[in-house]
């Protein structure tokens, strides 16, 4: 997607595979750049909500609560229509924050994109 409204070095342009939207994030996300993560994810979800948003976080060593809030907001968008957010390749700090917040059970967690697609 050449006209992405966000920094595609941080969040890739989405790929569509069936009823899934797949994207990769890279780097650390905190209050400074979580608004950009929000712009990217909400743009990907668009008007026609996908069945699942698969977000590869294997290149994301750190997120804070502001980025976590963005992930929750994406899930809140998808949930009414039965959609899910699948988080792929969580690094320890990211996994730890999800556990502390006890939000690890509301997302689908997968080790790889392949597994994420197979889980559905």
């Amino acid at each position, binding site marked *: 997607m050449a006209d992405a409204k966000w920094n595609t070095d941080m969040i890739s342009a989405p790929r569509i595979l069936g009823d899934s939207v797949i994207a990769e994030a890279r780097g*650390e996300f*905190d*209050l*400074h750049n979580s608004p950009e993560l929000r712009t990217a994810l909400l743009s990907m979800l668009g008007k026609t909500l996908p069945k699942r948003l698969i977000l590869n976080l294997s290149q994301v060593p*750190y997120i*804070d*609560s*502001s980025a*976590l*809030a963005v992930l*929750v907001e994406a*899930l*809140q968008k998808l*949930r009414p229509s039965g959609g899910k957010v699948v988080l792929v390749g969580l690094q320890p*700090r990211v996994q*730890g*924050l999800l556990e*502390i*917040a*006890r*939000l690890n059970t*509301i997302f689908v967690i997968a080790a790889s994109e392949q597994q994420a697609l197979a889980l559905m």
Partner: protein
Amino acid sequence: MKITSDPANLRDVRKKIESFAQSIGMAREMSDELGLALNEAMANVIRHGYDGAKDRPIVVSAERGDGELHLSIRDWAKPFDPATVKPKDHGRLSPGGVGMLCIQTFMDEVKFERLADGMLLKMTKKLAKHDKR
């Protein structure tokens, strides 16, 4: 160190404090916890104290104590009453209160002092792992 309340400063301060913690013997996993707690405390000041203003002062200091690290965050923001922060309602689809939860979970002591012209948050984390959770 004195910084402005620009979120762009969060990462640099966090990494400096994490490095300092490691240099005085704190394990990486624990300095990661410290860094997240610090980030959340500074983010609270920016979001709630300064209402997102990017040009207000925040002073962060860290020093080694007896087997522990002392961290303080001074701001000149409107008074903040930590008692008004609702604890996270576990199980609900909400990230609310996660920042405060991180601070309380990852730090051994947390003390908010209301000053005449702002707030002073003092936090302590032991250098060696112990069973807190």
